[in-house]
């Protein structure tokens, strides 16, 4: 059961949204509807399902409907049609009182332009959600203090928002959202108004907090680098329609259409794709340290390989070359353990940009190892180049 599930959301902006719904469901385009009835299609048939504990990124350019979509989760905007389920509960069925309760307890939100209250100090801002819930003053202030400390704002409690920098203001916004202990955090372009350095810092902080808190985060952004950095899954919107939805690598490796492709052009692929994406297709021949030299040599010659990885259990011990196997055979050794050459390896989760550096330094083949140091495969130089700069590759 997913945490948040939305099914067939339509949003039409204008006076007679219901009347236009059928036409839009019948396939009338955005431009056609605008020309005919003066109504705008905000969202068209969006269905998503968001797993608990994940960071789900919704991205698109301005006007793609992403900010409209996130406001449907807590019904700041009412859909024209469609279903919204949170923990299996139908949000559309909530009455005004229940909806207030739902917003107080289940979801909190961080805004692009912070949305802080200028007439309240930092502490009162951070405690706002709790005040709305009716929590007594001392209790809510203690809680707000805790969360301000968590986001690194200890000592700023008595300041007013206007006295803080943008990054600090957004930390207040984050503390305010976290203080309510809601399971779900909606972040509407939360870091877009910040300069790149601060943005990066806030992303790190969010990831660190998320590792501790394990909330369900819906994150809106127009910045693909940010999406790839934060998202467990990414949905891409264009003109109110869902273009592609998937894990970051899936989107990077298999863009659904030219729009997504264009989006991906400027992205730093080396940061997102890892060594595990650039494994050689060559069927690896693996030996163990206990293999007899004659057997090792035979198997190497059989496949015409110059070398093969040698494992001790599942861990990579080294590499055996044909000439070393020959020497071991001539020396009459019992096994090949004493004749191994060292081999460079990289963990499978290493970003390709780092791998590229190692490839340039090391002329030797690079092995890829898993989380526990087990051998996964050889790194393919050709693939690394292809993945990091596809344009370069196709031009060649």
């Amino acid at each position, binding site marked *: 059961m997913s945490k948040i599930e939305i099914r067939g959301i339509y949003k039409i902006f204008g006076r007679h949204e219901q009347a236009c719904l059928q036409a839009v469901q019948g396939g009338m385009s955005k431009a056609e509807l605008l020309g005919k009835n003066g109504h705008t299609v905000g969202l068209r048939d969006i269905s998503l399902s968001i797993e608990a504990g994940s960071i789900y990124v919704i991205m698109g350019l301005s006007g793609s409907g992403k900010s409209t979509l996130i406001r449907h989760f*807590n019904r*700041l905007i009412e859909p024209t049609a469609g279903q919204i389920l949170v923990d299996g509960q139908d949000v559309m069925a909530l009455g005004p009182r229940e*909806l*207030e*309760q*739902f*917003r*107080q*307890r289940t*979801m*909190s*939100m961080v*805004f692009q*332009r*912070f*949305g*802080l*209250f*200028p*007439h309240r100090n930092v502490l009162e801002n951070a405690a*706002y*959600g709790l*005040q*709305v*819930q009716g929590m007594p003053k001392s209790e809510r202030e203690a809680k707000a203090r805790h969360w301000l400390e968590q986001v690194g704002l200890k000592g700023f409690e008595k300041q007013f928002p*206007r006295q803080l920098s943008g990054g600090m203001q957004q930390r207040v916004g984050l503390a*305010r959202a976290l203080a*309510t202990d809601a399971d779900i955090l*909606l972040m509407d372009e939360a870091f877009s108004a910040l300069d790149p350095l601060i943005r990066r810092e806030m992303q790190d902080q969010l990831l660190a907090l998320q590792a501790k808190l394990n909330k369900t985060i819906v994150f809106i952004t127009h910045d693909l680098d940010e999406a790839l950095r934060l998202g467990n899954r990414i949905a891409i919107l264009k003109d109110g329609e869902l273009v592609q939805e998937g894990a970051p690598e899936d989107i990077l490796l298999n863009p659904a259409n030219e729009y997504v492709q264009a989006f991906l052009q400027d992205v730093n692929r080396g940061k997102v794709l890892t060594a595990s994406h650039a494994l050689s297709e060559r069927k690896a021949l693996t030996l163990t340290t206990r293999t007899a030299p004659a057997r090792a040599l035979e198997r190497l010659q059989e496949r015409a390989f110059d070398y093969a990885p040698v494992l001790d259990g599942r861990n990579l011990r080294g590499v055996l070359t044909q000439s070393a196997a020959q020497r071991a055979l001539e020396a009459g050794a019992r096994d090949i353990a004493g004749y191994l050459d060292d081999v460079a390896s990289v963990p499978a989760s290493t970003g390709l940009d780092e791998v590229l550096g190692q490839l340039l330094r090391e002329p030797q083949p690079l092995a890829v190892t898993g989380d526990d140091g087990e051998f996964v495969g050889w790194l393919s130089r050709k693939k690394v180049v292809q993945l990091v700069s596809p344009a370069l590759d196709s031009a060649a």
Partner: protein
Amino acid sequence: MFPELFPARDLRHAIDAFVEQLVVRYADVLEAMSQPVLQALVWLEHLLRVAPWWSIVLAVFLLSLAVSRRLLLSVGMAALLCVIGLVGLWDRGMQTLALMIMATGLSVLIGIPMGIFMGRVNWARRVFTPVLDVMQTMPSFVYLIPVVMLFGLGKIPAIIATVIYAVPPVIRLTELGIRLVDEDVLEASRAFGANPRQQLLGVQLPLALPNIMAGINQTTMMALSMVVVASMIGARGLGQEVLLGINRLEVGRGLLAGLAIVALAIMFDRITQAYGQRQQGVSQ
């Protein structure tokens, strides 16, 4: 000659008849309803006139100090009040002061809720904006006639006429203040589950306060400008003194009374403005 589509004379008569009916049927009821206001005003006037002059001066000084936190300004306000006493108009001045406080208080009591209503409900704004325009531009003598017919001469019609003329600014500026509240901030409060009352009291009103104070300031100024008209229908005070000056062609009497009105106006203005400015300082 402009073509006559319907007999205008009949329209006039119809209105006259309607007001006459109103007076016959409801004058007693309306007078009874206005009694609490009249009693409050009489009490306030009595209080101001009986209290020793220095206690009033001290009260103005302390109020001004509490509101502005500026010593020099507060001393100035107290001195202005003394000027009214020095020109021999203390008693008249207190009568006018009582009327002003009452009229301004009523205007605020009516104006702020009205402004909030118009700020939050779009149709209310469309309906009442032209009404406010009429209230501000219609010559006050026009509605003085029916008001006097209904309530008789005296303090009540003076207050009603003053409120009608003075209430629009506080309504307009309250509405403006509510509408100018940053949409993002209001949305944030909604996203955290604030109910309409929490949104109004916790976000909209505090953020609109500088504008509301500007409205109250304008309202007091306009109320003071009605002093002379009010005295024509029986309100005593500085306005009466001005009227006497006009009737008897005594320039000195009129001028001194006029200056006393100006002194009161400056007092009201500086004190309400100082409060508005301090609020603004807090919220921006």
